[in-house]
């Protein structure tokens, strides 16, 4: 784990207080309102390669409030969401050596970290008797695409985001609710005033639509 974070020979080895002037993050960047995905990506790589703490702080500033928002939307109380958001950022630092810009964007990577932390936390809560086991990683797969697929993923991500913007309001809504609202599908159905089967088929339509936009008709 440590070797991946070692600094190149021409930089001082990583210490607790890395000199701020060695960070790739300028003060201007860390203050700007909305970092670009290239900036986020550079920060994550600087954190992964060199343990750059200012890069970490910049990522924290951008993502911790969004992770907290995510947790609260899914029904977590404010104090617990605060605690878990901080824990998610600790996990982000620890998992930094596994960040692979060729594999996923920073936001996708952090989404999976926050999601797994949330799942783990509630599993631990749900079953105190087996606490020793439960702080294992969630069963959610840590996917390792084949090398030839990795090349396509970044490109595909950008396309997927574009495609998402082209979904109908209904379709985008049902995906948004699935990720970021407390209710399960049965409740989403009640909320939108449509039968459960319609939620399912709307999810399917939304995904098919996305794939069509990406690939042309279903292969």
């Amino acid at each position, binding site marked *: 784990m440590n070797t991946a974070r070692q600094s190149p020979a021409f930089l001082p080895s990583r210490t607790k207080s890395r000199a701020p002037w060695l960070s790739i993050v300028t003060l201007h960047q860390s203050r700007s309102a909305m970092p670009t995905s290239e900036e986020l990506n550079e920060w994550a790589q600087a954190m992964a390669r060199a343990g750059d703490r200012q890069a970490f702080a910049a990522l924290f500033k951008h993502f*911790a409030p969004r992770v*907290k928002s995510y947790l609260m939307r899914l029904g977590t109380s404010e104090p617990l969401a605060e605690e878990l958001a901080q824990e998610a950022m*600790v996990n982000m630092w620890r998992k930094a050596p596994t960040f692979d810009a060729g594999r996923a964007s920073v936001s996708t990577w952090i989404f999976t970290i926050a999601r797994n932390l*949330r799942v783990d936390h509630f599993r631990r809560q749900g079953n105190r008797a*087996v606490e020793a*086991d439960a702080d294992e990683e969630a*069963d959610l797969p840590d996917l390792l695409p084949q090398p030839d697929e990795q090349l396509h993923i970044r490109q595909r991500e950008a396309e997927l985001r574009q495609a998402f913007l082209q979904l109908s309001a209904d379709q985008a809504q049902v995906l948004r609710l699935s*990720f970021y609202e407390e209710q399960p599908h049965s409740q989403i159905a009640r909320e939108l005033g449509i039968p459960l089967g319609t939620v399912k088929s709307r999810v*399917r339509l939304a*995904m098919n639509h996305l794939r069509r936009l990406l690939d042309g008709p279903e292969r």
Partner: protein
Amino acid sequence: MTIQHHPDDDLLLAHAAGRLAGGPAVLIASHVELCAHCQRRTTELETIGGALLEELSPEALAPEALARTLAAIDAAPVADAVVSKRARQAPRRRPALPDGVAWPRALQHCSATPWRWLGPGMRWSRVTLPHDAAANVFLLRIGAGKQLPEHTHSDCELTQVLCGTFHDGRALFGPGDFDEADRSFHHQPTVQPGGDCICLASVSGRVLFKGVIARTLGALVGM
């Protein structure tokens, strides 16, 4: 292995969003770990999750949050702790599987009972999830040519085929295939010649067997 049957988008979405209960989650995970197609679909869904994360309106953290987080990072030498914890773990109880059939990675932290008799040519094993004691997950091992009693489900049954093949009246299911059945369908899976069929199954709600004897049997084993 060519996988023909995959989970629907809504199940895969619920899994990617981290919103499935323990039982369904291990079923989906046991499928996705084998299936490149569903790995790609999951990656797509996670990308949408990431893009939507960007969209959320931020919730301010406590003023000292960053300092606390940095302190937590400095405090914990994690790597060693994780290794020793793994090493400590006792081997888990598991029923024997035929040669060449792998225990799903999704079940690596689960224990399961030895094979128990369920009927002629039929055995089953209860799987216990460490994080969800209430989950109703089991393995079924059915001999070639045998038929499960006709049944339907009060809610939903998910099945992942580990080995062998069965036909459920609609389609043929082989290793790696995933099936979702609900109350709309009375099914009576028949195992095809060529060897035992072993499936991992998760049931929410009760399995409703059709005949009195089958019902009694189902009640006995807690299905």
